[in-house]
């Protein structure tokens, strides 16, 4: 390990690595996981909540899922305060596009724009990279439903199913096995909950430890972003076989 090359983002190591970027990804590997699955009729995002306390005041605030624009939402994994900055940046970028073109910003362009911002912090300014990975879920008229994953390096990719945060490799390989191209939104929810329950540390899953959101089209053609209520989430957990109705550890 070349320790002398890891304190500045703006230099490569002799092996051609950017250590600060890699360390940022380490930080995310310790954060609550999130899974996204693309289906024919929508995109499903599921996140593991790390902060579960009865004292926490949760009205409509979410910990993992955020709406960027009417047609795009994201799940985050990593340092929450960094995430807030980037989410705001993404929101401004989306509105700036709509201000100029009077149309919603295509999802990939939004992801690309945010990734370009992240990349800047790996090349100049002397500031550390953002310790956040995102799963973006959205719909636009060019490519329909889309799922993108972006990481601190500023790389991004379009995915059919993806996982970020703790145990993401295990989740990713499980998704690879069970995902099928013509999956419906309902099946995707089941799959996401199953995979997340297997990769999460906790022995019993309750709706308090999870967040579930969907991006889909209403019959009117409008894009809807909906966060699942705790009651519906509990029912879904039972339905997917993750929790027994009498709350026994599974």
């Amino acid at each position, binding site marked *: 390990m070349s320790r002398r090359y890891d304190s500045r983002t703006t230099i490569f190591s002799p092996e051609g690595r950017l250590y600060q970027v890699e360390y940022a990804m380490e930080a995310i590997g310790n954060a609550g996981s999130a899974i996204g699955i693309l289906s024919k009729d929508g995109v499903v995002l599921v996140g593991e909540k790390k902060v579960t306390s009865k004292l926490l005041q949760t009205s409509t605030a979410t910990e993992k899922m955020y709406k960027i624009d009417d047609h795009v939402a994201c799940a985050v994994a990593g340092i929450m305060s960094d995430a807030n900055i980037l989410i705001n940046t993404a929101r401004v970028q989306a509105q700036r596009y709509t201000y*100029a073109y009077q*149309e919603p910003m295509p999802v990939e362009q939004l992801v690309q724009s945010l990734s370009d911002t992240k990349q800047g912090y790996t090349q100049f300014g002397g500031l550390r990279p953002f310790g956040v990975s995102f799963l973006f879920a959205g719909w636009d008229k060019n490519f329909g439903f889309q799922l993108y994953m972006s990481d601190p390096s500023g790389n991004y990719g379009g995915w059919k199913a993806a996982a970020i945060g703790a145990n993401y490799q295990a989740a990713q390989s499980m998704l690879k096995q069970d995902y099928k191209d013509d999956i419906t939104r309902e099946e995707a929810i089941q799959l996401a909950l199953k995979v997340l329950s297997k990769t999460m540390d906790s022995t019993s899953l309750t709706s308090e430890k999870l967040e579930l959101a969907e991006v889909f089209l209403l019959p009117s053609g409008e894009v809807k972003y909906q966060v699942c209520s705790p009651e519906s989430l509990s029912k879904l957990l039972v339905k997917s076989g993750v929790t027994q109705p009498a709350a026994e550890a599974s």
Partner: protein
Amino acid sequence: MECVFGLVGNGFAIVAADTSAVHSILVHKSNEDKIMVLDSHKLVAASGESGDRVQFTEYIQKNVALYQFRNGIPLTTAAAANFTRGELATALRKNPYFVNILLAGYDKETGPSLYYIDYIATLHKVDKGAFGYGSYFCLSLMDRHYHSGMTVDEAIALVDKCIMEIRSRLVVAPPNFVIKIVDKDGAREYAWRESVKDTAVPAA
């Protein structure tokens, strides 16, 4: 004295512009093409200050091309129109462009459309529009004869009526016009209407 006008027909949009380049009392040339092909399926007919006209329309054209290179998809006509209006609006209170534009385009999902954009950044989506002194005649004629879903022949007949009216009733009427059309097959030149041709230069 510049005239630009256009209308939307059945699956197409047509724009016509005079082709005189005038400076004070001198006509520099009478075959100046003021209708730019913005991209494969968009036309920009512009009138106004000649330096601004070329500068601004080329700026828009290159930005539209850049968007397509960056994002792999073209801008819709509506997006291009709003972008153009935004640029005029931003420059308005500093360094305005004196350019009036009729932006005609064809989109696969929404068909043909025409946008009226004036030099103080007004934007209207219209079925027919016109700029210049000629607009007094064109708009009246189009109000009388336009109906939605016109065929190309009907639309050209109306365009020719407008050109005839401008030639006969406007005091310093531009003699020559260019007509361009945009439909599902793209944007292209349709015809010229010349009543004054430059004399041929004899070979040396």
